[in-house]
């Protein structure tokens, strides 16, 4: 909340619920939000509640300019697309890159590993890697790099190898770079964020623009039946 104010966002309301798996009716929440009349709805949802919210928001004709989600669940998962199809057009999710991702924007080693990984996933599942796939795949690949470097599973040697990593942005499967600081966290400036958007049943990369061939659409979101 404080951070939102710092960057100049006016928070008109916050609705909390924890029973994301057992919630059966989101109408009371939607009716309340409708009265608050927000420009942007930032809804962190899970597999059940995202399609339920979207369907009931449509029923209630709740209009807002954009919905933004973060993470690989709910609006960021393939189940949302299966559940609502083209009716999901316009929803944003902050996530790992999806279709439209320009791998030429990556470093050569990043391009190679991204392509190998994506081909393997597509061969196995028939669909584009989504959400946490690249993050998990990237983590595993990083483990291999560290083990190659340390040539040992001794914790001290392993730690030294981890801390000595210095990979620029664009070298990992998801386009991130790697540089761990003393606290063991990957430095923020090596993390590349991507905004994805549901466009005709597919979650595609729309931002940053230099990383993608797709452009964000439906800003602001029009009436529910005009998002084609």
């Amino acid at each position, binding site marked *: 909340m404080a951070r939102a104010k710092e960057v100049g966002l006016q928070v008109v309301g916050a609705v909390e619920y924890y*029973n994301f798996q057992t919630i*059966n*009716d989101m109408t*009371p929440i939607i009716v*309340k939000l409708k009265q608050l009349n927000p420009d942007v709805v930032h809804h962190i949802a899970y597999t059940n509640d995202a*399609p339920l919210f979207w369907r009931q928001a*449509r029923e209630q004709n709740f209009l807002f300019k954009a919905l933004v989600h973060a993470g690989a669940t709910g609006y960021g998962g393939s189940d949302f697309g299966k559940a*609502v199809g083209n009716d999901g057009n316009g929803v944003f999710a902050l996530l790992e890159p999806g279709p439209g991702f320009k791998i030429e924007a990556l470093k050569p080693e990043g391009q190679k590993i991204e392509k190998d990984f994506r081909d393997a996933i597509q061969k196995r599942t028939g669909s584009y890697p989504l959400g946490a796939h690249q993050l998990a795949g990237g983590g595993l690949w990083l483990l291999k790099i560290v083990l190659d470097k340390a040539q040992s599973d001794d914790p001290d040697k392993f730690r030294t190898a981890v801390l000595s990593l210095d990979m620029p942005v664009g070298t990992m499967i998801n386009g991130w770079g790697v540089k761990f600081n003393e606290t063991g966290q990957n430095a923020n400036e090596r993390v590349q964020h991507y905004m994805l958007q549901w466009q005709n049943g597919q979650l595609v990369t729309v931002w940053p623009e230099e990383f993608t061939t797709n452009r964000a659409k439906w800003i602001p979101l029009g009436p529910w039946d005009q998002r084609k």
Partner: protein
Amino acid sequence: MDPARSLGPAQIDVFAQLAVSTILLGGIYALIAVGLTLIYGIMRVVNFAHGEFLMLGMYLAFWAFTLWSLDPWFVLFVSIPLFFVIGLITYALVMKGVVRASHNVQVFTTVGLSTVLQNLALVLWSGDFHTVRPWHSLRATRVLGTAFNLSQVVAFVVAIVLTVALVAFMRLTHTGRVMRATAQDHDAAVLMGIDTERVYRLTFALGIAAVGAAGVLVSPLYAVYPTAGLQFVLLSYVIVVLGGLGDMGGALVGSLIVATVEVAGSYIFGTAWKEIFYFILFIGVLVFRPAGLFGQRGAETLGM
């Protein structure tokens, strides 16, 4: 300012919408609870696998829709006889041996059955979430500033029809009288020449047919996955206790009460509060009216 705390003309529309949502949600709960209360009322067995039969009904609707594009409203007519037979088979294989056993044995058996069915669904159909999207699932009807979901309206109507039909069956038919006699006094019923084994079999099959139909009807509204039943079944126990164990009309009223608490609590105090409210209600009923709001005092120990 929280809009729920202000009153004004705009609140009338909100109130109307919340009332509509409450009634429709109550209908879904009643649909699920009526089979549970029937089985409990006659057999005195709490079926902990009730939610899993609901889940199977949802999968039936999903496969029929995905493979043959059959509308859940059509599948409903197939599901009733189909789940009646599933109920008969489950009774013969699982329930028959424990219907006269102690409550502990019954609880372990039905909980075990629930786990088996959940995992069977997981093995057969994976843990993926599925959706059934017939034309009516996204159809909102607007009347006087309130919105109705068509799938939900039909589920509500079927819930009412089903409850009325079951109550009429129990009150007016010979078989219904035989079932009630068995529930009141098993031993006396046997002495009067009632085949109580047959009564239990029929009761269980009817209860499963009702919940199977419920599963088909809610499939356009909620995601289909192996543990989908858990989303509703905990609530059903609250409803059944509220309405009086074995009282089907009570289950309908109990469903509306739980839905009211859920919708109003969620709007006024926040969604996180709703489970607190209905479990306070649940505990309150158990303490002050253990036979449920409409049940007769002492009925809760019948046959135990």
